[in-house]
């Protein structure tokens, strides 16, 4: 009796979190998968089971494929960039140097500002006519750049904005991983004659594998869900060059009232995220 009670206790502690997870994550996910099988008559509001009709519709829709392509390109660029920079930054701030505490606080500041505010401030800084960045470029003798209004520069501008928060955030996790590496291991490598690069690639990186796996997965998911800067700054433009799937889904579902297509797009994205995260976890799986 006593043992049974004791066994239940951990589950009771987990229950509130589990309930929230079910209500806010699991149920909407299932509802979305379910919704993607229905068509709502725009006229009568009636819901009719439509099987894969919504999927058929989006797979034949060039705009969906265009936003799929933009999302893939964005992910292939932003994730490696953010993780490489975060790793570099973490290694730098892991050094013992005078005043490093102050520097650690400063570089963490962008995390304390919400993504929405960051996006709006960056939008002002990148403005073609009165933005600060163009002011600096002009001083340097470089002509004004259109940034968010250029097909070639808009996605890169979004990558910069996303990384402004992303890099310090992920480097925080990597820093924690670095500080978990026992110093004697690195000292032993040094004594054995390993140079800095060798001890970084042969000791530090392998020992960071678990942390990097987490960061890679979390960063991939976060960037797949990237939405606020697009809504606030580009509305998917110019010429759909920043039309990430998340924004296209919002536009279809909430602005244009096409919930079926919106749910189908989300479901497709869910499957893709699952596959990519699966591959990432497999590639970085622990062998110890």
């Amino acid at each position: 009796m006593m043992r049974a009670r004791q066994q239940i206790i951990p589950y009771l502690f987990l229950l509130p979190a589990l309930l929230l997870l079910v209500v806010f994550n699991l149920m909407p996910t299932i509802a979305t998968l379910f919704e993607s099988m229905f068509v709502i008559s725009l006229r009568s509001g009636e819901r009719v089971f439509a099987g894969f009709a919504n999927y058929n519709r989006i797979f034949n829709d060039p705009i969906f494929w265009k936003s799929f392509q933009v999302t893939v390109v964005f992910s292939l660029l932003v994730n490696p960039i953010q993780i490489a920079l975060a790793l570099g930054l973490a290694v730098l701030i892991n050094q013992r140097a005078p005043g490093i505490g102050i520097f650690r606080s400063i570089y963490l500041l962008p995390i304390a500002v919400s993504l929405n505010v960051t996006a709006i401030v960056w939008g002002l800084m990148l403005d073609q006519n009165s933005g600060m960045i163009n002011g600096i470029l002009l001083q340097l003798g470089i002509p004004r750049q259109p940034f968010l209004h250029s097909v070639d520069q808009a996605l890169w501008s979004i990558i910069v904005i996303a990384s402004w928060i992303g890099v310090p955030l992920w480097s925080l996790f990597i820093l924690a991983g670095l500080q978990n590496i026992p110093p004697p291991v690195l000292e032993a490598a040094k004594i054995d004659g390993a140079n800095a690069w060798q001890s970084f690639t042969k000791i530090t990186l392998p020992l960071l594998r678990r942390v990097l796996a987490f960061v890679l997965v979390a960063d991939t998911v976060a960037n797949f869900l990237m939405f606020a800067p697009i809504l606030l700054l580009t509305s998917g433009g110019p010429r759909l060059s920043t039309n990430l799937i998340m924004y296209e889904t919002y536009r279809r579902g909430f602005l244009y009232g096409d919930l079926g297509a919106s749910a189908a797009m989300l479901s497709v994205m869910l499957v893709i995220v699952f596959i990519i995260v699966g591959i990432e976890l497999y590639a970085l799986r622990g062998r110890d």
Partner: protein
Amino acid sequence: MLLRKLLLVTMLLGIFAILLAPASAQDEPTTITWLTLGWPTEAIIEEFEARNPDVSVEAEQVGFNDLFAQIQVRLGAGSEVPDVISVDVPLVSGYAFRNWLLPLDPVFTGDEVEDWLPAAIDAGSYEGTLYAAPVSTSTQLLFYNKGCFDRAGLMPPGADDRLTWEEIAEIAQQMTFDDDGDGTPDVWGFIWEQMVRIYQLQALPESLGGSAIGDDGMTVDGVINSPEWIEAYTYYYNMFNVWNAAPQGEEFWPADIFETGNICMFVGGPWNIPRFANNADLDIEWGVSRHPYFADGVPATPTGSWHIGVNANTENVDAATRFVHFISTGEGAEIWWRRGSGDFPAQQSVLALFATEEEFDALPMSYMRTAADEATVNPRPRAVTVGFLEYEQILQNIFQDIRNGADVEESLNLAVQRIDSEMAKYR
């Protein structure tokens, strides 16, 4: 034990409070919510409440783009609030098609309906039923800064002159000045007030004989990428990208820049007339002339404005329809025009006040009479389509792209592709 008693008493009190609440609420006025733009709503609400003490109106005021998204999300979800919504007129068919609005025919008498401009009744109706009562209509004029004309050594047009777009291009380039020589003009020659919106930009292809949408209200291929559209928006492209006479970048409100003397001409609504006339700090001399047109084409002017409708799911049908009736007819309509939006009224009886009121005898307020007349010159309503929201927003993105240097034909073809893919759900 004491704790239990206390709990019991509290619960009983709670139950009583709940039971008694509706009885006391009966004396409270019915509150209705009106989702609208940031107009001065105090006067109209005050006057309505004075005549209808059993109703209280709460204005929920949001920005231009937010209004459409809010209506879409809230009415789309079947919410019973807001009770009353301000409706941009081309969206009436889309809302009526989705059964979001209450039919309003029984609310108005024959005389009241006859007082509205016929075009406004048509625009507020879908398949012969009135869904949104006309409140205002609109037109556009050319506003100019006389100082710019002096500086360029040119003669400004008179209030009844109508310049061609070709002349505007010419003048605008001569009135663009880079005073500090940094390569970016400090005074710009020209801009459209709603620089990326079809409301104002449709008049360009319409002047050349183009149409807004196919006869079925769905087809855009061959319409918005027709030679007329390509020619019209090549002009638009050139204004920003070749002649460099109009500023690129983010959208802004040109009247603000006009007042500081940094924009010489803009095509804009008559709502700017009282704004400039009543601005005591304004130290530029300004004037208006008629809406421009292409030399090879015909004059065509933008039209249409705000209507008002009742949420089909409201729980306060009576109070909501009374408010809609008040603001769109007779005395209420006049109050809204005088002390509310100040937009052009859709009621002929209120429009007639422009001709008789002394206020409009002298310059600059007499420009309102010019505007009232311009509203009758080939007004071109926007596309009548259930998918207007998609049509409007996609074109807005496309115009913004063209303004910032995107190829015209390529952009219009992309618009066709995008609008087609959105229209698929209505077919």
